[in-house]
């Protein structure tokens, strides 16, 4: 366990849920970094065709495998269910992307938010609170507009509606039951925050847009799919 110099909590208090599908080329770096800093890591191998699960396990993560691909929302819910089983002695659960976009330093910063507010239940990462963000122009416009719309659809003032880096207290995990299987789960998160009256705040996070993460990331046209899927929830 490594003490977080900024927070009263330590990295061992956090279970990082890392959903992964066919991420064999990058998963080792992501998992090793988290494990090296003392975080508990649970990798959800979401029906990968490549040895993602085996590599994650050899890097020090616990691995749970979906026999078929279900989607990121389903993977996160599997992780939440395991977190609530009590096998891990943790106070917090983090959701962390496997493709190396997220920074472990951002996660440590998010942990400090809980020091200041004992009633806080979820810290949402926001790439737009980071001064030097490298968000591509098109993506920035769409994401900022989507965040603005969240004021009307959910009554929540957030600056980044689709950020995968989140830190949840276990009490918040109990209130989250994701039914959206795919990428629309980010919207469902906001809906549940509003409905379950979960206290939240945002924290700046650093996102690294590598060629790999760009190729694996969701094209903007997918935002239409998310909206369409929401209609049939």
């Amino acid at each position: 366990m490594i003490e977080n110099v900024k927070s009263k909590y330590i990295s061992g208090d956090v279970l990082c849920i890392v959903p992964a599908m066919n991420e064999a080329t990058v998963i080792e770096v992501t998992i090793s970094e988290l494990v090296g800093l003392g975080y508990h890591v649970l990798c959800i191998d979401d029906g990968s065709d490549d040895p993602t699960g085996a590599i994650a396990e050899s890097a020090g993560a616990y691995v749970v495998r979906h026999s078929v691909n279900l989607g990121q929302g389903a993977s996160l819910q599997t992780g939440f269910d395991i977190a609530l089983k009590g096998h891990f002695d943790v106070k917090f659960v983090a959701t962390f992307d496997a493709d190396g976009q997220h920074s472990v330093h951002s996660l440590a910063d998010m942990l400090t938010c809980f020091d200041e507010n004992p009633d806080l239940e979820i810290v949402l990462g926001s790439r737009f609170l980071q001064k030097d963000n490298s968000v591509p122009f098109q993506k920035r416009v769409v994401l900022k507009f989507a965040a603005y719309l969240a004021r009307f659809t959910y009554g929540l003032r957030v600056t980044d509606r689709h950020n995968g880096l989140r830190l949840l207290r276990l009490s918040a995990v109990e209130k989250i039951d994701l039914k959206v299987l795919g990428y629309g789960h980010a919207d469902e998160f906001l809906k549940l925050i509003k409905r379950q009256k979960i206290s939240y705040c945002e924290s700046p996070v650093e996102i690294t847009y590598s060629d790999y993460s760009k190729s694996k990331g969701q094209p903007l046209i997918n935002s239409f799919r998310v909206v369409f899927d929401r209609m049939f929830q």
Partner: protein
Amino acid sequence: MIRNYDRIIGKVTARLGFVIATISFVFAALDPGAVSKIAQALGVGRGTDLVTYFSAICLVGLSAISIAKFRHLEYRNAQLVRRVALVEFESKYFADER
């Protein structure tokens, strides 16, 4: 109906809609003159137009029900896969705790 597909009222409404649509189409084929009279009474004009509009509504409704049914099955499949994954995970790492 779409959001509540798994509820009994949603299932009954879907089946009722199917029966009404089938009877209507059979009626339209057997007595086109009556359809024209209904169309005029409704202000649509021609019976053919009424059948076209009704078909379009049926098509959209059928698509919506199919999507809802598919989503429902997808969710249940996901629950099954996740349950299997959980059992395998616990027997692999925490067998002695069970």
